[in-house]
């Protein structure tokens, strides 16, 4: 039998002060990021902001700076990134956001192609994909993204409330919010774009982190029944976390293995998506131990009522 951990006896609850400090910082960062998103100041993907994206490759090598400066002269917000893992060399992604109206997208693509043709005459640029999204699509997509976020939070809250109690529901929801905010905050810090795939990743990690929390809560409930004395609540929670620790780590490992694979080999489309999930696995594991359970402990200390 290989036991990475066996049944350890770590005082996780005792560490909650440090955890709360770290979590407060992460949550504030996340709230800041969401405020910036609502104000339209965070970088949004073209699916939310509207805009055009062109992927293509040159026949001969070009300098990314030359390509970028030529484009930003015309479209100030144009961004250029090199597509390193495409099957052809000298491949780039060009983006330009926030078209004035629905018809601009097509004109902008033509304009960008024109600039490239002019600046790199004799160096054939082959487009492999182009995407143009009008502002109205972005607006409605934003709406449905918020709707999906609210819907999943409400669904989760109701389910946890139904299966445990109100307190556990709130605590689990806080832990889940914490994870989503933390990852969104780090994303904002890194200057990465928020697009539809990132929203999906945030929702997925919400579900995942909640799974972790539920496993611990289930064990707390079971252990509370077994060791009835109320004075024992903190040790019971600690015991529950320790007993489920081996499972928590193993599941985190298998999920981490697959999201790392996605990050490394899944290609450019899934890069930020899998990055968000990697962070989600880390934060989700952390929060089910250091956030979800300590909240229950604190609540219990202020307003004693047996966990059920």
């Amino acid at each position, binding site marked *: 039998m290989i036991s990475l951990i066996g049944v350890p006896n770590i005082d996780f609850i005792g560490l909650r002060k440090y955890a709360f400090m770290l979590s407060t910082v992460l949550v504030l960062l996340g709230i800041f990021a969401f405020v910036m998103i609502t104000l339209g100041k965070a970088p949004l993907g073209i699916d939310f902001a509207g805009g055009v994206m062109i992927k293509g490759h040159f026949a001969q090598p070009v300098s990314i700076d030359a390509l970028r400066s030529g484009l930003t002269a015309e479209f100030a917000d144009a961004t250029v990134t090199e597509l390193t893992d495409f099957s052809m060399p000298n491949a780039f992604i060009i983006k330009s956001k926030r078209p004035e109206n629905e018809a601009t997208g*097509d004109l902008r693509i033509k304009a960008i192609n024109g600039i490239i043709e002019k600046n790199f005459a004799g160096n054939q640029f082959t487009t*492999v994909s182009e995407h143009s*999204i*009008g502002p109205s699509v972005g607006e409605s997509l934003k709406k449905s993204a918020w709707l999906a976020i609210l*819907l999943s939070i409400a669904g989760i809250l109701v389910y946890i409330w139904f299966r445990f109690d109100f307190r556990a529901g709130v605590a689990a929801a806080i832990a889940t919010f914490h994870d989503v905010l933390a990852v969104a905050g780090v994303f904002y810090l890194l200057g990465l774009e928020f697009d539809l795939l990132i929203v999906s990743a945030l929702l997925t990690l919400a579900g995942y982190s909640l799974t972790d929390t539920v*496993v611990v809560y*289930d064990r707390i409930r079971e252990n509370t029944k077994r060791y009835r004395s109320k004075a024992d609540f903190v040790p019971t929670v600690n015991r529950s976390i320790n007993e489920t620790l081996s499972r928590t780590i193993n599941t985190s490992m298998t999920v981490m293995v*697959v999201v790392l694979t996605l990050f490394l080999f899944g290609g450019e489309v899934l890069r930020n*998506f899998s990055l968000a999930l990697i962070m989600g696995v880390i934060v989700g594991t952390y929060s089910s131990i250091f956030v979800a359970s300590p909240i229950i402990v604190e609540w219990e200390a202020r307003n004693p009522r047996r966990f059920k």
Partner: protein
Amino acid sequence: MSQKWRIGLTAVMVIVALLAFWNTFKLWTLNEADKKGMEDREPGSVLRLQQKAIRLGLDLQGGIHVVLRVKLEELEPAQRDGAVDRAIQVVRNRIDGLGVAEPVIQKEGTDRIIVDLPGYTDKERAQELIGQTALLQFKMVANMETANLYLPKVDSAVVAYRKARGEMPVSTTPTASNATDTASKASNDVMAELMGKTNDTSKTKSDSAKMFEYDEAGTGSDTEPFSSRLSLFLSSNNNTQFPGWYVNKKDQPLIDQWLNLPQVKALIPQDLQFSWSTRSLVRDGAEKYELYLLKRKVEFLGKFLEGIRLHTQGGAGGLAVGFKLSGEPSGRFAQLTGANIDKPLAIVLDDRVESSPIIRSKIRGEGQIEMGGSATFDDARNMEIVLKAGALPAPVEIIERNVVGATLGSDSIKKGFYSSMIGLLLVLAYIAFYYRVSGLIADIGLLFNVFFLMAILAGLGATLTMPGIAGIILTMGISVDSNILIFERIREELRTGKTVRAAIDAGYHRAFVTIFDSHITTLITAVALFLLGSGPIKGFAITLFWGVTISLYTAYIITKAIFDFRKQYETLSV
């Protein structure tokens, strides 16, 4: 559940899954040479296989995705009703002629239309086809004498063209064309008739018409490559023939190519035009298009029609589409129909012929198109929508367009395939390393999980996208959680000194509540993601949902069945 049941149920599921996944498996294991061989033996067989297999999203196979908005604000409030449906019909009509294998055209929200053209990357043509407002025109069909004048000329031009390209033997002895004089009885009761509302509505079935014999092999003759591929079908009640021909679907691209040759175009006078029908239909057991020789002059415009309404008439329940005309255009229509009784009038939507009803009477103010005996309700409904689309054209604008080249698609497929393989192997190895024999059993469960997931995707006719592949990979990591929870429980039970048998039972039993609770939360987010709506994300949500659901089955039925065999042992490798 007893052991017998578990094994039986799993056996049934494996068989069902194999059936569901079989076509996909066949398709994915074919290489290019195999596909070519299949196509040679039986044309269209690869396409049919594709239609039965898991579909690939545009991001994986390349193609065009367009979102249209119907500009309802530019229509009168009374005209807004059904405007999106009319626009959809127009788009569908245009796309049907494009030869895209599996186009998707669907309504989204109140004013949007999503058009997916997998495998099609000619963005200019697609834009032109999809983004334009419908134009419905009425044109007269040319007469047979005119057609007979130009058909031989087209034939000789095509012969010369083919000789120049070395497509046919240079010297051919003129053989009697198999495509003349053979009379055959044609039941053209599908043909619509156009008549004034007040007139006698009894239907006279068209008599037999002389037709060219249809060339089954689809090869045509060498001397008359063009005309031998056409077979006349259009005739009026007094047996006068008109230049409307059936063309075998197989021959359609070829004929179309010839008609577009500059040297052929030069032969046809400016006031005439060849036009295809919008849709193909099945006649004498083969799929055919209709080709018409029309007078180019626009006799009447669809926008003057009003009060278009589908109704049944007569005792037999025949279908007809009624319409009205008022004001000045009414007089012109009366004049047009009065002067052309017993001649076909072509209803042309966007340069394609929708129908060619025979004019039965002078139509003043109010008329109807009778659909003919074998027309289905859908045919009539289509006619109604077409007329309405022309009468009340719905202006559209393109609000999103995504063009994915085939290279990018195949690049993504490769990445998706390799990362799923790597992810799968790593998870299998990790679990086997950590839980030993039990880990191998969990691995078997995981493999079943992936297999069932693919089968469900195939069975649901789901579309596989790059995020969908990410969902499959993520599911591999998440779905072993059930087994991990069970194994950890069994370990705990063993530690308390329980026997193997008792530990397995207790482990499975105690883990259940936790597994159930924790999986539901993932399912809730998967449902929310599905409702988020956009195509690729839907693919992700579907795979996540089913992957997690199946993992409950594999853990409690499949791996449990194997574990029950291990209860007899003294020790357990877990």
